[in-house]
């Protein structure tokens, strides 16, 4: 039996892709006025900033506990509210279980809209409604969580074994019972994992929202930066790093156990 000839290398294609990417990068750099020489010239300013930022102001640490708790509270409320609302949103957007085509299409588009708009936008929107502060942040993160969890979860629900829901139907179960007893029990572990993941995102998100006045650690970070208290800023950044890593570790280990 003769050995097959190796397939032709697509050198032209590779070079073409590289050329397109390089052109796009240069074009973008030009567009935003990005230049390496300027970056080097400004390095002095950067190093001054770095010098002022060290050592971190450990004495500031106790004053971070309150804001940290507030950040966690915002993230937690956002996650819980979002996780609850995400269940029906995800189920109605999952083709095989969605009751009809119209519901499916409406819900799909609803999810797309939620996902397209950034959490910062929601924060602004809720801030005009309830005023700047933790509540606006929590509401914004609720919407954000619905967007994240419902997208992931509806894909899980679409992948379930539809034979089981049919068995519930065969016993005389209603649509709700079919979903609740035949469909969802197959995907609760994934759901829990998505909720944990969403909580991780929300902790980070609530810090960003704090920058625009939603309270918590982000707000402290912004006020200290505005006052040129760079040693405190470093302290805040370090502690944020520790907390985020901690939460990610816990979440990852829980998710591993669920899988």
């Amino acid at each position, binding site marked *: 039996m003769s050995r097959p000839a190796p397939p032709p290398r697509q050198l032209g294609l590779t070079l073409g892709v590289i050329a397109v990417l390089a052109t796009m990068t240069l074009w973008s750099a030009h567009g935003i006025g990005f230049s390496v020489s300027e970056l080097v010239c400004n390095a002095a300013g950067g190093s001054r900033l770095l010098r002022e930022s060290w050592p971190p102001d450990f004495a500031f640490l106790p004053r971070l506990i309150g804001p940290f708790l507030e950040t966690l509270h915002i993230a937690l409320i956002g996650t819980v509210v979002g996780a609850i609302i995400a269940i029906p949103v995800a189920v109605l957007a999952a083709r095989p279980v969605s009751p009809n085509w119209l519901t499916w299409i409406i819900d799909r588009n609803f999810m797309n809209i939620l996902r397209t708009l950034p959490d910062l936008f929601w924060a602004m929107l809720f801030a005009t409604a309830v005023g700047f502060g933790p509540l606006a942040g929590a509401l914004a993160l609720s919407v954000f969580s619905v967007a994240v969890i419902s997208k992931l979860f509806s894909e899980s629900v679409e992948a379930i074994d539809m034979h089981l829901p049919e*068995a519930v139907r*065969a*016993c005389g*179960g209603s649509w709700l019972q079919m979903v609740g007893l035949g469909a969802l*029990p197959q995907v609760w572990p994934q759901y829990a994992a998505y909720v944990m993941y969403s909580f991780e995102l929300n902790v980070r998100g609530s810090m960003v929202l704090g920058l625009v006045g939603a309270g918590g650690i982000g707000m402290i970070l912004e006020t200290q930066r505005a006052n040129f208290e760079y040693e405190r800023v470093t302290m805040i950044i370090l502690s944020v790093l520790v907390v985020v890593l901690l939460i990610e570790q816990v979440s990852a280990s829980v998710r591993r156990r669920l899988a």
Partner: protein
Amino acid sequence: MTDKPGTSEAMIRFRGAGVTYPNGVVGLEGIDLTIQRGEFVVIVGSSGAGKSTLLRSINGLTPLTAGEIEVAGVAVPRRQGRELRRLRARIGMVFQDFRLVRRLSVLSNVLIGRVAYVPTWRSVLNLWPRAEVELAMSALERVGIVDKAYVRAGQLSGGQQQRVGIARALAQAPEVILADEPVASLDPVTSHQVMEDLLRINRELGITTIVNLHFLDLARRYGQRIIGLQQGKVVYDGSGSEVTDEDFRRIYGRRPGEDDFLQEPAA
């Protein structure tokens, strides 16, 4: 057996029943059958002959496109709705692939048989009334695996899982049990046990039972009545003790081979 006093009334009646799938494939055609209350009927036929379609049309999982089926005098509705759910509640179904929620306990799975009798919120939150749990437990006792009530369904062997499937059907306190190839995923010994269970339940409780089988020896041994399907039509209808090899040849449209028997044919 079918002429027990007071039981010779029609349980299921097909009148010109037919199913044509949306892709044009004919699943069933011109079925006229009457199955008496308390009968134990085995349906045979090669794959694609319409066995599953016939069973699934009885509880409306596959809606008819022609004719009608009556179960206990009630026409099977062609549309989803309360009426169809009520009818399905009276008809238990056992599947080839068991269809259990593997992550949930055996008891939770059997309780699914009670969905039609409890409020949705209670069933979905797994807050079953005590009486329902009692029914589920006694269904498990009847198939002899009540000791596994709190074990995860996925941890049981295939034969045990099928018993849970039967218990779920029993928990419905059904008038009819439909078993769609209930032993096709099981080994020979377990297959006989499951068939014995079905037969015993039929005798003890008088539940009309219809079983799809593709093994001829099982059909002959357990079928008090055998209905042969070929290309969606009834080509044989007679007692299991009288069915001949020639009948099987007609049903299958070929000489039955080794694959058509659970165990080596005795002859």
